[in-house]
């Protein structure tokens, strides 16, 4: 594949019709929450865009992210756009190995210095460089070196964005995220374990169309995909509002598709597009399969106290504790009331009747007045 071939040319070469291409542009516009008037602009930009060089580095990861993205293969447009970029280095996918592979990376860097997109999946171990190396180069060194010439960095997956599972307590490798190390480049965090394929293609489409990275939230995630939490967009939300919860995975509530909050669903604190974009070509998302959200696109999701522990469920039986507290309160209240009542009864018993002769104090001047 030539770097000079435009996306349009590449798509045509791959047998994608004009209609299919515009459909992709419309989809890209809608997932990025752009107005329909932007569709021609996207189309024009993509048609003339030179396929950018992409260098993909994999560090401490499970290849799940790459699986997720590559599995959205042709004929979907997500797959096609991958054909449309120039993926110059991806050690899972590339045919080359050993020195040849590293040379491909170095060459791509040299040719596209300052223009290539660096995609990273996996976290970087700081504990000991030897924990994870590629061709004898530590992850940290490789990241620093490759990041230098990148136009932008896309951290894919929760490991690259927030440290992910390698960082989970007790974090034996001293894993950190890309943004913990690289401070001088624009970084887009596409979190998720793994992220939704359309999200990464959307970010790339945005970059190709506007030459910039999309607007990000406070965690560096594209707002168009991570602007809503799962709970707010969940089709089971009405059950939550009505207080109808599944208590176990095989009870009546679970069968009726009630809210999974009590079964530990992290939907209310998880920001991602699962409930709207869905997975597997728009088939479903985890809650639709009857399992609560794990919160995989949030930092430290592995250490949030357990996947099956409800977000706000107290550790002990509420009704029992409340009953004890009520009982204790009532006893204390009755005790205090009894004391107070006794005190009042005592003063009432000791009441000395006030007569007109008791209205003055033993004050000489006043006694005089009384006498007169």
């Amino acid at each position, binding site marked *: 594949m030539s770097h000079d071939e435009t996306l349009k040319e590449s798509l045509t070469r791959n047998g994608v019709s004009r209609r299919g291409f515009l459909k992709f542009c419309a989809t890209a516009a809608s997932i990025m929450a752009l107005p329909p008037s932007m569709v021609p602009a996207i189309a024009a930009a993509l048609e003339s865009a030179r396929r950018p060089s992409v260098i993909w580095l994999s560090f401490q990861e499970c290849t799940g992210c790459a699986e997720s993205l590559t599995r959205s293969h042709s004929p979907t447009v997500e797959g096609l756009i991958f054909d449309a970029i120039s993926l110059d280095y991806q050690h899972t996918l590339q045919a080359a190995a050993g020195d040849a592979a590293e040379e491909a990376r170095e060459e791509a860097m040299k040719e596209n210095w300052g223009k290539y997109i660096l995609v990273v999946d996996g976290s970087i171990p700081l504990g000991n460089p030897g924990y994870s190396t590629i061709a004898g180069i530590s992850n940290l060194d490789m990241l620093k070196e490759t990041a230098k010439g990148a136009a932008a960095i896309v951290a894919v997956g929760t490991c690259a964005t927030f440290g992910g599972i390698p960082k989970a307590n007790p974090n034996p490798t001293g894993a950190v995220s890309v943004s913990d190390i690289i401070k001088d480049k624009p970084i887009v965090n596409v979190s998720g374990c793994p992220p939704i394929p359309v999200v990464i293609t959307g970010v790339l489409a945005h970059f190709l169309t506007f030459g910039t990275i999309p607007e990000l939230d406070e965690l560096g995630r594209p707002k168009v995909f991570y602007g809503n939490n799962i709970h707010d967009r969940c089709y089971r939300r009405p059950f939550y509002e009505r207080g109808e919860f599944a208590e176990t995975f095989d009870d009546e509530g679970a069968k009726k598709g009630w809210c999974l909050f009590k079964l530990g669903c992290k939907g209310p604190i998880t920001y991602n597009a699962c409930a709207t974009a869905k997975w597997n070509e728009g088939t479903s998302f985890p809650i639709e399969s009857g399992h609560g959200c794990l919160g995989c696109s949030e930092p430290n999701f592995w250490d949030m106290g357990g996947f099956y522990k409800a977000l706000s469920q107290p550790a002990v039986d509420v009704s029992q504790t409340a009953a004890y507290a009520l009982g204790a309160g009532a006893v204390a209240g009755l005790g*205090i009331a009894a004391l*107070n009542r006794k*005190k*009042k009864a005592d*003063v*009432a018993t*000791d*009441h*000395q*009747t*006030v*007569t*007109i*002769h*008791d*209205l*003055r*104090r*033993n004050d000489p001047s*006043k006694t005089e*007045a009384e006498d007169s």
Partner: protein
Amino acid sequence: MSEASLERGIAALKEQIDAPVAAFFSSCTHCGMCADACLFHTETGCPTYTPIYKVEPMRRLWEQEYTLLGRAKKALGLSKPITEEELEKWQSKVYNTCTLCGRCSMVCPVGNDITGMIRKMREGMSAGGFAPEGLIGASERAVEIGSPMGVRLPALKAQIKHAEKDTGLAIPMDVEGAEYLVLLSSMEIMNYPEYLHAITRIFHQAGKTWTLCSEAFEATNSGIQIGSSDIAAELVGRVVAAAEKLKVKTVISPECGHAYTAIRWEGPNLVHKEFGFKVQHILEVLDELRAEGLLKTEGIEEAKLTFHDPCQLVRRGGVVEQPRNLLDMIAPNFVEMEDSGVMNWCCGAGGGVSANEDADKVRNKAFNRKKKQLESLDIDVVVTACANCRIQLEDGLEINEMDIPILGLTEMLAEHLKEDKPVEEETS
């Protein structure tokens, strides 16, 4: 006999703190709305006259004695005990600048009966010897002579003689089995004898039997004003004994505000029993007579007039419609003043303030509120139904050089009384 002391005062206060008081103190949000409801605050601008602040020593005592936190604060010396100096200082707040008018209780957003608490606060003040001299004197006269103004039976008899002569009707005294026992206030006996004339004629025309009682003719109750339930009970007890002895159906409270409160509302609680007779204010009786067709009038009052609602009658007593029904009979030019009815502003002299010389200055200042209300109306006559309001209105208007006559509603009705029945010479 013993003498007043701080200890007795505090014991009396402790005795007064009951569940409603505890609830009131707990629920006060310090919003300050009661301040603007009190004419002593609005007319002086003095923040220490904020009604709820007038019971601050009682609040502290409640906290120290009846709450957990208060006990702890007291033990740690964070909450200071009540001192003699403090209660002496509080006298002006509790007595001079409160007429127990009840306006603060009306506006309290959490429903605290602040007036009721000030009434309770006075229990402690009077038992502790912190009541003002004027009220102590009035109480002594009320108990010993039978009238806070020192009016004795011979003085009443003299007035009865005049009234019988003027009306040509006999005024019954100590008549057993009469329907009504009529009470009077000393103020009416000495300053407004027209009242006695008026009811004599009205009852004659209505064909109702009534009587005065030589042993209990005084309706006012200094015990209520000074805030001593013991003394108040002694005074109410005399009326109850008289009513029971004469077997009357109804006791009539005269044109006086606090007398009505004393007999109608506090009375049964003071003597700890249900009355075997009814208690009504004279305006309630007159309105009943009107409804039954037993009170007929002729002619109308040409003057443009307004009605000053006495606080104890309207706000604390609920007698709102009756005076208006009665005025409708004779006063086509009747106009309401602003805030009339249950939210009417106090004249500034009730609740013992008029009997307390220490309060003279602030009382006149507080009258400004009434002055402003009256000024905005451009009226010829003010009508009211409380001798105490009436004398304050007369005083206040005179000081402010406003020439507006004040009339009692009962006597005004009597002036227009349609007299169908012949007046026989019944006097002996």
